[in-house]
């Protein structure tokens, strides 16, 4: 199984969910899919389906209405799964810290593995976050085996 887990890091399929962001980081995530940054280099494609996703790119501070939806999606993702909070509002809710309808960060709702700072998080930072998350994959897989 170790081999398969290693292979897994070469094929991270993406689910992107916007939980109330300003779109800035979402655009940068889309930029990752496009020629200039092209995450398919790392095997990443936007599967946009939780059942077939490995790595969740979550943006936004999680609004009240998105909270349950985010949890719903998270639970549909098969293990091992990685969550990347993209941008400041996803990591800390900062730009919206005075807003009354947000949960202030993704980690209030689901466990987050990597926090990408930036408002907007620039594509390079997102790639770094993506690669960083992949480095956690084998660890996660092993932990799952042992459970």
């Amino acid at each position, binding site marked *: 199984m170790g081999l398969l887990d290693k292979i897994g890091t070469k094929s991270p399929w993406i*689910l*992107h*969910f*916007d*939980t*109330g*962001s*300003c*779109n*800035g*980081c*979402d*655009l*940068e995530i*889309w*930029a990752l*899919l*496009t*020629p*200039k940054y092209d995450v398919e280099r790392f095997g990443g494609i*936007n599967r*946009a*389906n*939780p059942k077939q996703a490995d790595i969740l790119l979550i943006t*936004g*501070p999680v*609004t*009240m*209405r*998105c909270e349950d*939806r985010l949890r719903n*999606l998270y639970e549909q993702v098969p293990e091992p799964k990685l969550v990347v909070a993209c941008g400041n*509002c996803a990591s800390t809710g900062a*730009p*919206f*810290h*005075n*807003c*009354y*309808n*947000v949960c202030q960060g993704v980690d209030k709702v689901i466990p987050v593995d990597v926090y990408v700072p930036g*408002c*907007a998080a*620039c594509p390079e930072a997102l790639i770094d976050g993506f690669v960083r998350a992949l480095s956690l994959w084998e660890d996660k897989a092993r932990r799952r085996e042992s459970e």
Partner: protein
Amino acid sequence: MKRPTTIPIGPQHPAFLEPLNIGLELEEERVVGATLNLGYNHRGMEYALALDYKKTQYLVERVCGICSNHHSAAYCQTMEDIYDIEVPVRAKVIRTIMMECQRITSHLLALGHTAETMGYENLFMQCFRERELAMRLVNEISGNRVHYSINVIGGIKRDMDAGMERHTANVMRELRPLLEDLRDVFARDNTLVKRMKDVGVLTNEQARDWCTVGPVARASGLPQDIREDGFAAYDMIDLKPVVRDEGDCYARTMVRMDECLHSIDLIEECLKLLDEGPVIMTVKGHPTGEGLSRVEAPRGELLYHVKAIGGLQLDRIKIRTPAFLNVPSVQAMLPGSRLADVPLITVSVDPCICCTDR
């Protein structure tokens, strides 16, 4: 007996960048009922922005990352209106340049997104490839790809130097043939035209009824472009609003495409208008009074209405975003369309939920 199929599209769906939900009722893949559900992106910004009008000039960009600059420009204009000051010409021109740059990035996004909803992945990629040029340019001018943080009350805080002006002109020259190629594809590609023509028709009457603005209204034959009112530097340049009257997805797409090209014209004109001069003037005291200001954001008329009562906190800041008016109009277009066209129609109004919900 034929029962309808119910299918929730969104809030997470590959066709949409943002969380919105359409509860579809289908008969035979034909839409018989569509309920649009919003509010997934409601953060409560109108409350938060009213807390400190100075911080607001930065935070207001976070209403929407696609037309962030238009938001801060509109906000600053409103505040300048309340202070009753006239910003320096150079600031106005640079604001205009930034707004038009952002229009290009926003429209290319919308165009790429439209292509993407029709499964035209290559065209999506091309749109985004060209968009990167504009993104790079705004990054060079303002220091950030998304949130320029360049508008402040009283003017702009980062000037362009001569080198940057030349560079901008070069980029525009580089961009024009690329966009013209794209226009060619959008206008003439058989499969695209087949998918977009006569799909999602919004008649002139409906466009008025749903109070649509911007490209959506202009594609339905409503000649409505707030830039004609001449805010910022628009009274100094030769603006030709793009209006079509088919009202279908094709018209909306082509309006955006043509506006992209027109934006290049406008930017080039603006560059010629750049004279030496200050770009900012200081304002004194806390604002008092009521102001209303509009700009033409990529998606249409963006309206700010502020009531200030002297002090850091504002009494009310009302942001009437264009998408707030445009997005609901899909409810007029969806019934009777095919399931395959639902993403296309929805995306053709260029939905921006973050500013619809705020």
